[in-house]
Structures are given as structure tokens and as C-alpha cells.
């Protein structure tokens, strides 16, 4: 897997892999074992090659700078799908805690993301890593990226 790490200030690091079919299980394990509170790394994953490196770098840097303010965010995955003839970037944000205040902080960041990248179409999804999910802590992201909403 070819991977790159973007080093930001205060030890913030964004890892992302460029290659299609990146080993999701391995990344999921990394996310599941990491505590956002102890480890300020936000992992940004994409499994598609249709992102340009520039686009992916820009999105990753945005998340690195914005989401580090929300301790409960433990991972972000980006996928791009063609829907009705236009590419829609789906943003899957993974939270370690189900909390209304946390969710609304993420929503504010999503709103800024849309304003910042105003030429892109985005759809957003939240996923919980907590024990309250059916099946325990493993399912960071949906297995098959179900066609939600």
C-alpha cells in the first residue's frame, strides 16, 4: 500500500492511503485501538483512486485542522461516487462517543467544509465506534458503503 502522512503543527498527523482496495480491516484495527484523547491523530482513508492527490491532500488537511478540535472523532473516510452524472464526495466521520453536542460540532465543521470546497458536492454520514453499536466496537465504517439516503 502506498501511503502518505501529512505533518501538521502540534503533532497533528493525517494519514491517508491512495491505493484502491486499501486494507480496511487493518485501518479499522488502528482506529479501534486508538483513543482520540491519547493520540491526536485523525486518520483519513480513501479506498478510491478517483481522488486527485491535490484534492485528497486538501480535504485531508482541512480535516486535520478542523476535526482535531473534536476529541471524539477517531477517523474519517472519503469516498467518491457518481450520482446522477455528478461526483458526490461522501464523508464518513467516525465518533467514539454518541453525544448530541459532539455531533453538532461535527455538523458545523461539515458546513464549513461545504463552504470551503464550494465546487464539490458532499454527502455526510456519522458512525459510532462505541459499544452501543450492534456487534461491538469493530464496525468503524459500513462494510459495503450502503447507499444511504
Amino acid at each position, binding site marked *: 500500500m502506498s501511503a502518505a502522512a501529512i505533518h501538521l503543527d502540534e503533532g497533528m498527523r493525517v494519514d491517508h492511503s491512495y491505493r484502491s482496495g486499501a486494507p480496511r480491516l487493518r485501518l479499522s484495527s488502528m482506529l479501534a485501538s486508538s483513543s482520540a484523547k491519547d493520540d491526536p491523530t485523525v486518520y483519513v482513508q480513501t479506498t478510491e483512486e478517483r481522488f486527485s492527490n491535490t484534492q485528497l491532500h486538501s480535504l485531508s488537511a482541512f480535516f486535520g485542522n478542523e476535526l482535531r478540535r473534536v476529541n471524539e472523532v477517531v477517523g474519517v473516510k472519503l469516498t467518491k461516487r457518481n450520482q*446522477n452524472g455528478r461526483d458526490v464526495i461522501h464523508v464518513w466521520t467516525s465518533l467514539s462517543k454518541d453525544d448530541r453536542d459532539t*455531533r*453538532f460540532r461535527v*455538523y458545523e465543521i461539515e458546513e464549513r467544509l461545504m463552504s470551503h470546497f*464550494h465546487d464539490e458536492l*458532499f454527502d*455526510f454520514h456519522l458512525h459510532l465506534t462505541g459499544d452501543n453499536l450492534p456487534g461491538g466496537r469493530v464496525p468503524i465504517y459500513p462494510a459495503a458503503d450502503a447507499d*444511504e439516503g
Partner: protein
Amino acid sequence: MPTRDDHLKLVDQFTAFLDRERPHLMTPPQIELAIAAAYYRSLHYIDAWLAIADLHPANDGERFAEMRDRDLRGVFPQYRNVKDRYNEALYQARKFTVYDLTEDILDSARGIRDIMSRKLGC
């Protein structure tokens, strides 16, 4: 394509459902149905506003972009919350309590209703 009034008729139907069923007395699967009704009502409020400008989003990607560009940023967080809760109930079999329904999901849905009914004059 559906007009403003077409969307608002659906809004009325889902509102009638929520009012009739008394959410604070609900048990599953009524809770899940109420979450779906709250989501559909919220979506049709937004699409009613967009239909005035002859905009008819085919998915949430398009809808979010139009919300950003058509003065609907104020309802974005509330709509996101209702949509997330609906998706959790639908795709993750997440169990919600009456408290979740009334204090979180319907609270957001009421926020959308309050803003959109003022904008739409209904």
C-alpha cells in the same frame, strides 16, 4: 416535478401522523416510524423551499449544496441530525428510546419546522 405545494401536502401528512401518534407514548416500532416521519417531513420542508426556485435535488449531495446556496444554512445542523438518526435506525438497527425521539430527533425536526414555516409562509 413536484411544486412547493406538493411538498407541503406531504409535510402536512407527516405532521398529522406525528401529532396523532403522541410520540411520548410510543414503543418500537412506532419510534422508528416516527423517526422516518420526522426525516421525511424535514426533507419536504427543504425541498418545498427549493422547488420555488425550480430546484429538485435528486440526492443529499445536491440538496446540501442547494441548502448552502439558497439561504438554508440555518437548518443544516438540524437536518443533518435528523438524517443521521434516521440512517442509524434504518441501516444500523439502532434502538432509540422515547427520550431520544422527543428530546433529540423531534427537537431538531421542530427546529426545522419553525424556520421553514416562517420562510415558506405556511
